[in-house]
């Protein structure tokens, strides 16, 4: 742990956490406490937890010390004769009042930290985080970088998930696009969701905030050191719940400025693409990449879906029928099912490409090439 974190009085903990012995022998893979805090609030929480633990261990030792004494000294085999007392008003009042006093002593500092945690005013940068089944979308709304938006999807290769390739250190905790923020700036996070409830959880930043469909919640952090901080969705959101990690990259200010410039450039190129007329082969190639990121979890790589859960696309009415129906389904989704509206998530180019791919992959051989302009025309 860093020096800022209050040192733990070892004897206290050793009493209860017998596993502490075990951990000395074991290697560093055994993490026995919170991740190393990266914000002031996270440090306060770390200390509160340690402090509470010390109180609990002390009470535990006192109560079970008394009980252990009874177990040893007052056993029948040791010749114990039962006493007959069965109440004592003084001691009963005492052991009601003392816990209340301890609780008040604990409640005060927790309340202070809680009030600080919830004060999200005067943020330098505001980022809207949207949960999707099963990925995160980031929109930089205010401050430096306003206007940047992108999706962030699990980047761990399928081969590692299947156990066909050795798993890397950050297995299941890698994404294609990191959420980049500058160090020492107050970053306000607004969470919401596109479908079901998700939860944006980054332990080192001490943030866990549910993302509610149709509502906005907020939280904030000010990272006091650079680094890459990883977290995961914390609220069960369907089959991909374990596969939507969060990666926050805290960088120095200059580096952040460079990142912002780079993102702006990327977005400008993206906008040009939409007016281009694409060849069928180009669309299929791009579409396959989009499909792998966005569709494969449900409809599967072979387009067969999962029987009676997720419909097949291979040979389906929509994928082999009129183009317009297919475009509409992808744009607006199917309310009441897991089929999301991809209109707000993907660009016209991506949607055109993925539809083209779906209409030409597997046994679907329509030969249709959908242009971004056709998708644009269907957007309301």
């Amino acid at each position, binding site marked *: 742990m860093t020096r800022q974190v209050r040192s733990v009085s070892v004897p206290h903990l050793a009493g209860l956490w017998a*596993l502490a012995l075990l951990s000395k022998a*074991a290697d560093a*893979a055994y*993490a026995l*406490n*919170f*991740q190393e805090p990266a914000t002031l609030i*996270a440090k306060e929480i770390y200390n*509160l937890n340690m402090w*509470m633990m010390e109180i*609990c261990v002390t*009470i*535990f030792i006192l*109560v*079970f010390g*008394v*009980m252990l004494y*009874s177990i040893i000294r*007052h*056993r029948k*085999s040791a010749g*114990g004769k*039962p*006493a*007959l*007392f*069965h*109440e004592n008003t003084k001691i*009963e009042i005492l*052991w*009601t009042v003392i*816990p209340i006093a301890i*609780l008040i002593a604990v409640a005060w500092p927790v309340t202070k930290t*809680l*009030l600080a*945690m919830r004060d999200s005013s005067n943020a330098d940068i505001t980022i809207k985080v949207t949960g999707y089944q099963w990925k995160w979308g980031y929109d930089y709304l205010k401050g430096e970088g306003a206007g940047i938006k992108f999706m962030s999807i699990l980047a761990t290769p399928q081969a590692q*998930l*299947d*156990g066909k390739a050795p798993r890397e250190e950050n*297995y*299941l*905790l890698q994404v294609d696009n990191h959420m980049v923020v500058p160090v020492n700036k107050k970053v306000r996070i607004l969470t919401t969701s596109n479908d079901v409830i998700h939860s944006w959880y980054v332990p080192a930043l*001490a*943030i*866990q905030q*549910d993302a*509610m*469909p*149709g*509502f906005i919640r907020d939280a904030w952090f000010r990272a006091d050191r650079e680094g890459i901080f990883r977290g*995961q969705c*914390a609220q*069960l*959101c369907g*089959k*991909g*719940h*374990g*596969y939507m990690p969060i990666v926050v990259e805290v960088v120095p200010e200059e580096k952040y400025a460079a990142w912002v410039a780079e993102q702006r450039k990327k977005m400008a190129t993206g906008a040009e693409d939409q007016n281009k007329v694409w060849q069928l082969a180009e669309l299929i190639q791009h579409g396959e990449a989009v499909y792998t990121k966005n569709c494969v979890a449900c409809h599967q790589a072979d387009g067969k879906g999962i029987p009676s*859960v997720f419909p097949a696309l291979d040979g389906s009415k929509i994928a082999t029928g009129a183009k317009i129906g297919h475009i509409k389904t992808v744009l607006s989704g199917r309310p009441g099912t897991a089929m999301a509206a991809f209109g707000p998530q993907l660009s016209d180019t991506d949607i055109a490409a993925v539809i083209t791919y779906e209409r030409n992959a597997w046994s679907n051989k329509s030969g249709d090439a959908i242009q971004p302009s056709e998708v644009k025309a269907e957007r309301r």
Partner: protein
Amino acid sequence: MQKSANGQAQTEAHGHRPEGLRRWLTTTNHKDIGTLYLWFSFTMFIVGGIMALIIRAELFQPGLQLIEPERYNQIVTLHGLIMVFGAIMPAFVGFANWMIPLQIGASDMAFGRLNNWSFWLLIPASLLLVTSLFVPGGAAGVGWTLYPPLSIQMGMGMDLAIFSVHILGISSILGSINIITTVLNLRAPGMTMLKMPMFAWTWLITAFLIIAVMPVFAGAVTMLLTDRHFGTSFFSAAGGGDPVLYQHVFWFFGHPEVYIVILPGFGIISHVIPAFSRKPLFGYTSMVYATASIAILSFFVWGHHMFTSGMPVAGQIFYMYATMLIAVPTGVKVFNWTATMWRGALTFETPMLFAIGFIFLFVMGGFSGLVLAMTAVDVQMHNTYYVVAHFHYTMVAGALFSAFAAVYYWLPKWTGHMYSEMLGKVHFWLTMIFFNMTFFVQHFLGLAGMPRRIPDYALQFADFNAISSIGAFGLGLSQLLFLYIVITCIKGGPKAEAKPWDGAEGLEWEVASPAPYHTWETQPVIK
């Protein structure tokens, strides 16, 4: 009934009953129904336990080995629902059926046919849950909390779960009405409220909790049902509803529910500790008041399950303080049990071992609960394995250990035989060791940030998950020993006296062992 020769003959005539299947289908006898409840509960405990083992096998190492993520979610959901509604609650209703009439000097429960009906409702309810695994789309994969909008997306397995919850709710409400009526009206003359056995007290309070909150849960899932099929939008923002509304309604039920599964256990422990300490329970009156305070407070703390759902900071502070307050009456209980043991003459038969194990582990679960109550800290631990460890320390170590204590304590009364003390002690130590091996390490997983309900995990969590899985299999297999002990005890063994424990107190020890089919036809008089 008069105890004349004539009356005796009449009693014999009463003893005639249908044999075989018809006896069990049509019985209105509280002992038969208690037995049915207990066997049903054990069966569901095995079913839910096998599901737990599937979960732990999948989590033994990173990657997907056994089941697909959607199946994983379904099994997590059913494990929770089955253990809470199929295993724990029926077990305590079983103890209540068997023991409350014996303890208060009543000849049976107040409503015999209602009693039969409330048991047999459990069968279709549990079948709906288990068979939902095999319908198209599988069971509901949403967690036992059934949060929308995810539960709106599910297939027909979700509807089966909703109907199952309805039926389970009716069953436990009927059971509670029966228990309240029995306890309030059928006590032996002279047994005033404050002379009642603690088990009857805790069940009386629990029964009121059930009647208060089960209809609320039924309402919540009915709203889910209409949102799913009839176009309402209680929980959908698009139609003017709010998913958080469901969470409020659910946890208004859900928090009292955790006391529903633990309070009868408190009652059992309050019998076992004095019996083997050979000393009266310390602070009987304060025990009753503490139980009532816990029950009342349980209605004002549900928001602590929703600290990350988003609520005003004033709400978070209120729920934090209210939750912390529960530590006070709970502490009183623990102190009372310790004081009961103080200067007693202690022996450590199996029921006593389970009772002491209960206190030890339950206090640990209470402490982690106190940590989770601190809103600021909870944000770091919410929905992680720390929470999983916490509630298994209270539910498994709390409810299950007290249920084991009860079985060993009353088994001689039920069967007329003594169980094998040696095997009972082995069962205790195996359960104790493997339980801690399974769940203690989960605290560390949660602190390190492993979310719950994920089928695959990052490599940093691998070691503790492997330890936990090995522990889980040990814990599961140890329960086969329990089954063996109970069956051998039913079949034979040393004859049990009417009062096999020299320190035990209460009317149940004044009838013969095994307890005759009809007891207390003449009510005893309490002086």
